[in-house]
């Protein structure tokens, strides 16, 4: 049985028919065509599917779609404004924090959730914030550098 | 091209269809084969709230011999009707017009009821909303002038049905049903002669049966088109001969078919009717060949049809 849900996605109201069994990730990628959010493991272990729901970084692959009703959700596609990149996106590019790029959207969303809540995090805060995001390429050094640079820049 | 929003309802009985119609304040259209209706809606010439599909109604798809009549359900497709042995044997004129209608694929979808009740056409009318908006709405669109004949107060759009004229020549009647009950009229009475609203059918009325007296006839249908298939008639002439008398119907020119009777067939009477039909035909520049030419073809096709019948029957 399909159900209609309404929520705010990247600052726009979206109404869409969904199957209750879907995950939010499925809706984003397969129905709404927002493929920036990646599926890495499907079990909430890797963080590649991280999006921000009501200010919190959430693994969308294990988030039941019906729970999205009424929520405010941001994905990587909603970060740049009028063609202008978000500071975190710029920092990731400048600091060389991007290699294969598959973890990048989730990583940036986790970082954004952190900075939104805590504009001046410590290195430990940063490490804690991205501990659920696996990266196989970078060794995390440049990622942490990038997040730090944004925090310091504020 | 996408369709505008409307609701779709499938009626199981005539009563249900009439009820649905009334429920939507008349802003509804009945759907049979859809080969005429759907393009009109796509072009935003009709903007219904609801479409009522009549194809689920039992009994509208039968052909029955009742007493001395053939009773044809309106939902039977042109292709099925053509296969009916009575049609070929008794009504060669109708058989030929069915055969000449559009193309085979559309014959398999289009119904005889829908074919009879198809809307009139005009080169300046059957266009997209954008085209018509740029041109300015014509009389048929609720505007103030005819776009083909600017000083005319009436609409010259052409009725392009192939089969109503044939049916008229074999004395067909239409049984119509509405909430108020049933009425049966001769087929020619269905035509209003007004291109804006070409039929006398009352809002919500449903064509229930086409009744044809079962008498053997001779006949022929002559159709002028540019191509050998798909096209609507630029002029169509149906002729049915019964003993010494004949009935002639001319279609494709103007909002309704013209009907003529010949009491006694001979060269003179045929010529007279041909002349008469020529005078009656008032085509305008709203189809692909010139009006004068189409007018000239009326007597030519009438004489041809008679010649062909004389030369050994319809086929």
């Amino acid at each position, binding site marked *: 049985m399909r159900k209609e849900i309404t929520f705010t996605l990247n600052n726009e109201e979206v109404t869409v028919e969904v199957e209750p069994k879907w995950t939010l990730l499925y809706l984003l990628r397969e129905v709404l*065509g927002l493929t920036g959010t990646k599926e890495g493991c499907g079990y909430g272990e890797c963080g590649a599917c991280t999006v921000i729901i009501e200010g919190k970084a959430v693994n969308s692959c294990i988030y039941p779609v019906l729970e999205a009703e009424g929520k405010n959700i941001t994905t990587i596609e909603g970060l740049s404004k009028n063609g202008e990149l978000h500071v975190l996106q710029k920092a990731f590019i400048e600091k060389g924090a991007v290699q294969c790029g598959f973890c990048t959207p989730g990583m940036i969303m986790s970082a954004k959730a952190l900075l939104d809540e805590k504009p001046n995090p410590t290195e430990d805060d940063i490490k804690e914030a991205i501990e659920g995001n696996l990266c196989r390429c970078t060794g995390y050094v440049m990622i942490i550098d990038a997040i730090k640079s944004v925090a310091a820049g504020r | 091209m996408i369709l505008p929003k409307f609701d779709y309802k499938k009626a199981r009985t005539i009563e249900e269809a009439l009820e649905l119609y009334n429920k939507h304040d008349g802003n509804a259209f009945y759907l049979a084969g859809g080969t005429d209706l759907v393009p009109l809606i796509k072009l935003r010439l009709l903007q219904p709230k609801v479409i009522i599909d009549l194809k689920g109604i039992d009994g509208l798809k039968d052909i029955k011999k009742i007493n001395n009549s053939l009773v044809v359900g309106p939902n039977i497709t042109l292709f099925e009707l053509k296969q009916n042995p009575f049609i070929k044997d008794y009504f060669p004129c109708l058989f030929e017009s069915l055969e000449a209608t559009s193309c085979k694929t559309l014959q398999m979808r289009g119904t005889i009821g829908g074919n009879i009740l198809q809307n009139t056409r005009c080169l300046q009318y059957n266009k997209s909303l*954008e*085209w018509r908006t740029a041109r300015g709405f014509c009389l048929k669109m609720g505007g103030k002038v005819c776009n083909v004949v600017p000083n005319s107060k009436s609409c010259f759009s052409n009725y392009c049905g192939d089969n109503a004229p044939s049916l008229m020549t074999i004395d067909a009647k239409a049984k119509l049903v509405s909430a108020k009950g049933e009425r049966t009229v001769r087929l020619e009475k269905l035509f209003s002669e007004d291109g804006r609203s070409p039929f006398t059918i009352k809002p919500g009325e449903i064509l229930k049966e086409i009744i044809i007296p079962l008498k053997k006839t001779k006949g022929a249908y002559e159709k002028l088109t540019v191509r050998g298939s798909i096209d609507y008639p630029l002029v169509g002439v149906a002729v049915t001969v019964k003993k010494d008398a004949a009935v002639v119907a001319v279609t494709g020119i103007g909002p309704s078919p013209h009907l003529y009777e010949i009491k006694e067939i001979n060269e003179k009477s045929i010529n007279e009717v041909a002349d008469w039909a020529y005078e009656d035909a008032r085509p305008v520049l709203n189809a692909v060949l010139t009006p004068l030419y189409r007018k000239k073809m009326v007597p030519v096709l009438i004489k041809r049809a008679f010649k062909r019948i004389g030369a050994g029957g319809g086929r």
Partner: protein
Amino acid sequence: MDENLKIVGKRVIRSDSYAKVTGGALYTADLKLPGMLYAKVLRSPYPHAKILNIDVSKALKVPGVKAAISGFDAYGVKWGVFRYTQDHAMLPTDKVRYIGEDVAAVAAVDEESAIEALSLIKVEYEPLEAVFDPVEAMKDTAPQIHEQYKNNINIHIHIEVGDVDKAMAKAYIVREDTFKAKGEAYAMMEPYAVVASYANGYLDLWMPNAGPHVRAKALSNLLKLPLNRVRVRHINSGGAFGGRSEVAPGDLVASLLSIKSGRPVKLVLTREENAMCSRQVHDIIATVKTGMKKDGTIVAKEYKTIYDGGAYSSTGPIATSIPYYVYEECYRLPNVRYDGYRVFTNKGIRGMYGCHGRAFLAGNEAQMDLMAKELGLDPVEVRLKNGLTAGELTATKSKIISCGLKDTIIQAAEKSDFKKKWKKHTRNKGIGMGCVAIMCGFPMGFRSGSSCYVKINDDGQVTLITGMVDNGQGNESLAVQVASEVLGIPMDDINLVNADTEVTNLDPGSYSQAAAYVGANAVKAACEDARKKIIAIASKKLGVPEEEIDLKDRVAYSVKTPDKRMPISWITREAFFKGEPIVGTGSFFPDIDLEREWVSKPEGQMAGTYSFGTSVAEIEIDEETGKIKVPKFIAAHDCGRPINPMAVEGQMEGSVGQAGIATIFEGNMWYKGFLLNPDLLEYKVPLACDMPDIETIIVSSNDPKGPFGAKEGGLTIRMNAYSAIACAFTNATGMLFEELPLTPDNVLKLLEKNKGGKR
């Protein structure tokens, strides 16, 4: 090698047909990309009006709308094929010039929202007086459509050879007639569609096109993007016929919308839009004056031809020239004066067509027959007498390289029993003949040539990379077939990567009749390069001299001792071990005079070579209705050596429909600037039941420079099938046509006039 061909010249199944019969072949409208938006275009309701203001702000407020644009969002660049014809902004900001011109556009998450948003765009216009008839448009009092073109004359081509006036004065008979033809619709089955996807600074585009490289360059200009950031990609095309040659407004619209929204955008035109707003064919008025000797030799020709160009230049200089050139490339014209005018009117833009110039060519041919009759000569003999032969120069000094014209005339005449039927025709039955030549690969500056890469993969299979594009005529299969021949590898083993501007190298496209002659020649050269490398290794490994080795069925072998052999896949691996993988490159540039210019210097070598064709039509006229029936059609074509005769026949048969039957069916109808038949119901594309019994004759000649002797295939019939019908009409009635198409009303009018005049 040429004398012992394995696959070239055979009736092979086209490599693209499997995908097409199974529904797997994708066309632009079939594409769906993640996050894709749907675009709709707001079009001008006026034939001519000043644009005062365009406001798209309200459209942007419709839920689901992601971008809205007008010409004010573009970069102010005007497009033109030539530097002197840059007059088309694609999205105008000054004024609109035809009904249906692109004015603004939106992209939304679905078509419904896009349609709703369009209705909210506000455009303020100030209507201007419009002109629809080219003769009217040339008058001083006519409204000016473009400031820079006085009297609305877009292009004037003047060609003067010899002394026309003197020759006319000396001619035995002189005749002057004026012929008209309504413009046609391309009516390709696929309505125009484009998908544009802009991401990370790069723009990907898919659309039916006849030349991806030319298209990408135009878009790079219009969008002020470097060429390597605009990538026109491969996609199937549902017919082009000349109507997909140039960059289209929709390309710019979809690109701008994608750049604005950051999402892929798809625009699909409706059938009506495709007819009104993509391209149409020129209406033509041709006055033809001919001077002839008593023996039928043409001594002089004088022409005034007016082309109704619609609102913009498009391929103007080419369109204004081509009907004349294909005639002079066929017949010897010692003295000739040609004045061709392309004139602007407030109608849709006119482009080149496979059947371009029917009033001019059919007029020339029918008039020639009437003059022959007056002189008591036979049209076949007159054509043979005036027809050019190999080695001769055309009037404007272009050398005919190879020429099978004579053979096409003789064979078509014999097959149809032409001479007898023409002389003893019965009432209202007639037979007629039309001839023409077509240039293969004409001057397009540095874009006239093509190049190709080929690589042999580690399993011995082949990847072929060429800019050649296929619009349905079979160019892809042609390339694969040529490669297969040279490399001795079956067609199935060859993967074609083509018409993708970031991968393939420059190619002229498929609209200068260049695919078979130019593109395939480059493929052949690249494969020969690879072949040489294969043979070199095989020679060493097998211990036989290189000249002794041939490639066949995936194997290199010694011709003298065939059991000395090794699979090409082994050779490939040898090459990898040596660090010299087998790749081949090759290119071809036709031998043409690059100084030649359409307007300023219409003289010099026009093309690499020419193909020739003769059509013969038999007709019957119904005297009462004026309806013409075409029971029989014979087409003979010199296309050099046909690479795939089945494909060439297909082109010839299609031409009989699109040009031949079109002569009695097809023409655009107008009310002022309104196209009255922009659909497939009232525009009469012939149906199966309307087709004559067609017989095709391929006259095999061997062009010295063509790939395996091949030249262009099919187009000659497309440009003379109408002449055959027009001449048959003259044969049947003793009179010339006045206007094409010869619809029944038109024919009856002529027949009545004839009766009135004679008796």
